[in-house]
């Protein structure tokens, strides 16, 4: 495979979202290829989460467009998808990991059902296979098999986050959106989650767009980075380029503000 004939998986083109007169994000353009992890960094209110929601069809953009390559290799504009295609993306081909696992999990049903539900949504009906897949994914995210029938309410924050990831990945998505996936977790729990996310993305072809304000997380997980300020992308490049040779005053401030331990 050469770079030239390898087409991007997702292309954002002049993407913008206005809340009334206020800018959520503005004029955002970038391309994401299969297997890449892209970090979106910037301070609170810089438009990172708005951008993520526009990319993942949770918010309708005010301007611009997102193109996505379907499994049959057709590149389609997300606002022109058929209802069946849209459902396929939301339920199977994409994952969305929320900062608060309670938003991404159903807290009233067991851990196993949380994973199995996504499989059932794509037509799997065989109980044994669903339970088998749930057990396999619990193992991969390092949750003991004997916790399968527990409610996520009985799980710790770090376990809930790993369960949310398992629920998202059970359908074999090609793209996962993550909004501050390590936010609010202890550092030791964060390391475990980072290790898991690294194993899931490296070499598997899975792509991810990760919103984070934690530059250390971005450094360890992503290969490319975009920096947002006041809704706009002010700098982008390879993660080590942006962090070690930041060009913009705001990026320099951001990088120099990280405390060293």
């Amino acid at each position, binding site marked *: 495979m050469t770079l030239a004939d390898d087409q991007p998986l997702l292309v954002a083109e002049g993407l913008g979202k206005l809340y009334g007169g206020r800018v959520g994000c503005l004029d955002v353009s970038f391309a994401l290829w299969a297997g890449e992890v892209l970090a979106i960094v910037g301070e609170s209110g810089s438009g990172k989460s708005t951008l993520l929601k526009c990319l993942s069809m949770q918010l309708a953009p005010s301007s611009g467009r997102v193109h996505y390559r379907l499994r049959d290799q057709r590149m389609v504009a997300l606002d022109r998808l058929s209802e069946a295609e849209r459902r396929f993306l939301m339920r199977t081909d994409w994952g969305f990991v929320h900062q608060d696992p309670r938003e991404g999990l159903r807290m009233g049903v067991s851990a196993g059902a949380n994973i199995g539900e996504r499989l059932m949504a794509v037509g799997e009906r065989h109980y044994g296979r669903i339970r088998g897949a749930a057990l396999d994914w619990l193992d991969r995210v390092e949750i003991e098999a004997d916790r399968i029938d527990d409610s996520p309410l009985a799980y710790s924050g770090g376990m809930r986050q790993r369960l949310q990831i398992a629920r998202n990945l059970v359908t074999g998505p090609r793209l996962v959106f993550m909004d501050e996936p390590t936010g609010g977790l202890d550092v030791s729990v964060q390391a475990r989650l980072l290790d898991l996310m690294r194993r899931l993305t490296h070499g598997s072809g899975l792509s991810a767009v990760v919103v984070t304000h934690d530059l250390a997380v971005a450094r360890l997980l992503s290969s490319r980075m975009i920096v947002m300020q006041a809704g706009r992308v002010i700098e982008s*490049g390879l993660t080590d*380029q942006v962090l070690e040779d930041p060009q913009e005053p705001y990026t320099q401030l951001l990088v120099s503000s990280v405390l060293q331990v």
Partner: protein
Amino acid sequence: MTISKLLEITNLCKTFRLHIQGGVEIAVFNGLELTLARGEVLAVTGPSGTGKSSLLKLIYGTYRAGAGRIEVVHRGSVIDIATATPRLIGDIRRHTIGSVTQFLRAIPRVPTLDIVAEPLLERGEDAAKAKARAGELLERLAIPPRLWHLSPVTFSGGEQQRVNIARGFAARAPILLLDEPTASLDPANRERVLAMIAEASAAGTAIIGIFHDAAARNQVATRTLALTSPP
């Protein structure tokens, strides 16, 4: 570029502008020229602050060139790193330029063997072969197998450096950048690393290294580039 030349730098300029410190400008290079052929070991020398590490980072694409060209032979064509897209630079790092930095950067919990094998996996090599190669290198650098399944985060400085060196050598890249590869090693391990550098060079790898230790430098370098502060 002729066939044996792997790297050619022309009129390289780099100035850092520190916006948050009153816009101070620090000029590092102003018209640097350099070529590197197969099998050469170029030692970059000069006092602190003359840009030795910066040169390696410019070649690796971590620092962005202000002006000039940094051309490498990548998969049979000549690519200018100074203007290459981030994605192309990523491909160059997978296939053409290996790097050993002074400090190991790793996610806690990732086993040493995986860290060393990773560059091979990233270029699509078979997992079993990649781990076997990683094991050979670790063994050669005297990291015993009982440590391979541990994260190197808790290793000593010298052990971490050897893990980093094993990772840098794993993919057998045609161009290798070494930033102080022997700095925190004891004499026996220093000799092991110098022997690996000499072997890679004999096999055609083009190497640029920073060696503070003059004896180490004299032992492996085929050429020296002395940097001075820009006027």
